Every structure is written in structure tokens, then in C-alpha cells.
């Protein structure tokens, strides 16, 4: 069974198109991430042991990479 799709020209003039291309600047995105990270909900998030270990591993890898570059 197929559902009939109305041709575009038959859409009501005030109906919004199904998809809208939205672009954010990197600066705006970073600002939003920073805000999120400083929010109480994010800061008070309870971390499990696996996530904690992952954070420490990433930090160590980043530090070692930085030391290698020096």
C-alpha cells in the first residue's frame, strides 16, 4: 500500500518545508558547550568507574602527546 504524497505545488503556502538547513558557527557551538559544562547538572553528574578511567587515560595520552611534541 502506498500513501499518496501531494505534489509540492499543492502544499499550503504557509506550511514549513520538512527540513531546514541550520548552521552554527564554531564560536557559538563552543560557547554553548562551555555553558553546558559550567551548568550545575553537568558538574554534578555522577561518573562510573569506566568513565573516570577513560577521562584519566585521555588526559594522560594528551599530556604524553604534548610532551613528545616539545
Amino acid at each position: 500500500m502506498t500513501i499518496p504524497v501531494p505534489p509540492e505545488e499543492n502544499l499550503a503556502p504557509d506550511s514549513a518545508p520538512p527540513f531546514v538547513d541550520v548552521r552554527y558557527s564554531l564560536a557559538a557551538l563552543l560557547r554553548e558547550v562551555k555553558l553546558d559544562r559550567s551548568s550545575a547538572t553537568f558538574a554534578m553528574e555522577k561518573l562510573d568507574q569506566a568513565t573516570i578511567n577513560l577521562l584519566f587515560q585521555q588526559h594522560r595520552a594528551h599530556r604524553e602527546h604534548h610532551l613528545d611534541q616539545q
Partner: protein
Amino acid sequence: MNFGGKVLVVDDEAHIRKFVTLMIESLGVTDVLEAANGLEAQQVYAREKPKLVLLDVNMPRVDGIQTLRQLKQTDPGCRVVMLTSLVNRQTVEECLHLGALGYLRKDNPPDEMIVQLRSILQECSVRENSPPARP
């Protein structure tokens, strides 16, 4: 396990210190020291120079974060692993940036704690001749 060095366990609760000490001893470490607060930890550290410090965060008078900061100021090479039930992201990230080597949840089941502690002791042995974590 061949861990040639002392481990200092810092916690204000005696039964936790005893529990952690027993676990570390079960991994073959024979020299385990204890301190009941941050102030005592700094004194024991200066005197005994342990290879690893397991440090509680929530303690009266001088808390674990303050103690970590002070230990790193006096000896940037000290190896500290936080051992705590305080696991919010803010506290974990603060300890990470202050130069803690790791962070262990106190509420892990004992067998999981043993696995984590073994891995930390092995890492300390491997890193003995490499540069330690700095803030």
C-alpha cells in the same frame, strides 16, 4: 606482585583504612602506612616518601583536594590516586587537573577494587623511571 615501595592510605574512617590496607597487602605490598587526615598525610609523606598515596576526598579539617594540591606543591613527582565515594564530574576533573594519577570509587565491589588497585600498582612500577603526572 613486585611493588618495591610504600603505600600510604589516607582516610578519616579507620575501617576503610583497614579494608584498603588488607586489599593492598593481598596484592603483595608489605609496607602500607596509614593517615587519618590531610595534615597527618603530609607529615607521613614528608617522613616516609611513599611510592603511592591513596587519598580520600571528603575529610574533616584538610580535605583530599587541598592535600593533593599541597603534596604536589611540595613534591611534584608524588603519585596520588583518589579513593572516594564522591564521584561528581567537577570533583573528578579537579583532581585530574591537579595531577592525580587515578580516581577510584570507594563503592566499587571488592573484587573490582582489587582489579583496579592491581592495575594502579603495576602502572606505578612501570612508570617508576618515567616522568610523573604534573598538574
